[in-house]
């Protein structure tokens, strides 16, 4: 597990919490595996988000108590979950009709790379030996109204994930609306990466140095 106490910038939980602040009450939301899943712990007071899992459940609740889970009540990550009051089960074509038809308000996904034009790569590193596995990622980015990415600003080896052009295979072209990292919140605009907010104690220069494409400061 990655340390929860970064030298600088937000922890994974803080990143999740920061995303949660931007989600309107009553939103229908699909959360990717990893940091996005943590958003459920940080729903602001007075708001309710309704979680969709593409394997056929709207109104997904938290993981079950130890020992009471059911093998046939799982999420898209194949982990056991629960269903809240007001939930519904449905078949796959209906689940992806919600996605493809633009009925979900938001999906929050991890990323391998995001380009300054909004291209997202998050499903394959494209090596000759890799087993390609796309799941529902391409459907989500093509269909959901807003796509948020939440990710560490750089890879474990310190390379920028926010770059001029993706080198990994795309999940979708021009699909990302906003990026939340440990260091900053950044919008995708017609002009490229637009800084929205710096994490506490982080300077513009610090973020810009770790971003592989021009970063437009807050005007």
């Amino acid at each position: 597990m990655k340390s929860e106490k970064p030298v600088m910038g937000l922890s994974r939980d803080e990143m999740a919490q920061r995303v949660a602040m931007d989600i309107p009450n009553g939103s229908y939301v699909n959360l990717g595996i990893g940091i996005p899943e943590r958003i459920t712990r940080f729903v602001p007071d007075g708001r309710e988000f309704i979680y969709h899992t593409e394997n056929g459940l709207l109104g997904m609740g938290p993981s079950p108590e130890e020992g009471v889970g059911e093998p046939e009540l799982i999420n898209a990550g194949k982990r056991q979950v629960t269903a809240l009051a007001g939930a519904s089960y449905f078949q796959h074509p209906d689940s992806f009709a919600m996605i493809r038809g633009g009925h979900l308000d938001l999906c929050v996904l991890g990323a391998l790379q995001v380009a300054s034009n909004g291209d997202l790569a998050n499903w394959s590193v494209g090596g000759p030996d890799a087993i390609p596995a796309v799941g529902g990622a391409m459907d989500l980015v093509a269909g959901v109204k807003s796509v948020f990415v939440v990710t560490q600003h750089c890879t474990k080896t310190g390379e920028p994930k926010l770059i001029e052009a993706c080198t990994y295979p795309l999940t979708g072209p021009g699909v990302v609306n906003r990026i939340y990292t440990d260091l900053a919140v950044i919008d995708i605009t017609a002009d490229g990466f637009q800084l929205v907010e710096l994490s506490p104690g982080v300077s513009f220069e610090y973020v810009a140095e770790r971003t592989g494409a021009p970063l437009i400061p807050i005007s």
Partner: protein
Amino acid sequence: MINKEVSSTAVAVADIFDGATVMVGGFGEAGSPIELIHALIDQGATNLTVVNNNTGSGEVGLAALIKAGRVSKMICSYPRSMNSTVFPELYRSGAIELELVPQGTLAERIRAGGAGIPAFYTATCVGTILEEGKERRTIDGQDYVLEYGLKADFSLIKSFKSDPYGNLIYNKTARNFAPPMAMAGAITIVQTGEMVAAGELDPEVIVTPGIFVNRVVVVPNPAHESVLVAEGVTYP
């Protein structure tokens, strides 16, 4: 916390605008949201394009909306009724436009619109006059025509029960076009016979998940079109 219930049919349809495309649930009288249609008549929006399998009967519900001159175009499969001359008269006089769509193609076009499918191929209507103007394509040796998804600005449907999230179940053959129309409407407005608490509807039996629903108004004892027609009722 989330509650999609609104206080009246008038409130539910208040923002339907002139020129809107409006899908209306129902096959014959089964599933027809009569009270919502009457509220729409009262509201006054005009120049509407209406999608429904039929054109109503008598002079209530959809037939009354048409008779009131509010509908400039009907998209439907069967614009005839034993009990109504409203549509035929306007059609023959050129006062209303008709897009005739085979019933299954209509259902699938509405579903496609709601499911983010812009177009699909079907064998239905190949080699008939309804193929005119459509693209034909041969796939695996069989001929098909290209049909486009249909969306609406508003969908008006009727359900048996709803919960505050807008989860819906229907009554028997009143289900018909309501589920795909709920998907295809930018704003989906439901008149429901009963509002129950969240969690009272078994999540296994919900037909329309609340994500497709925007507003719900409770109409506890909805009128039946056939009864109104038999009684000679006209609206307004």
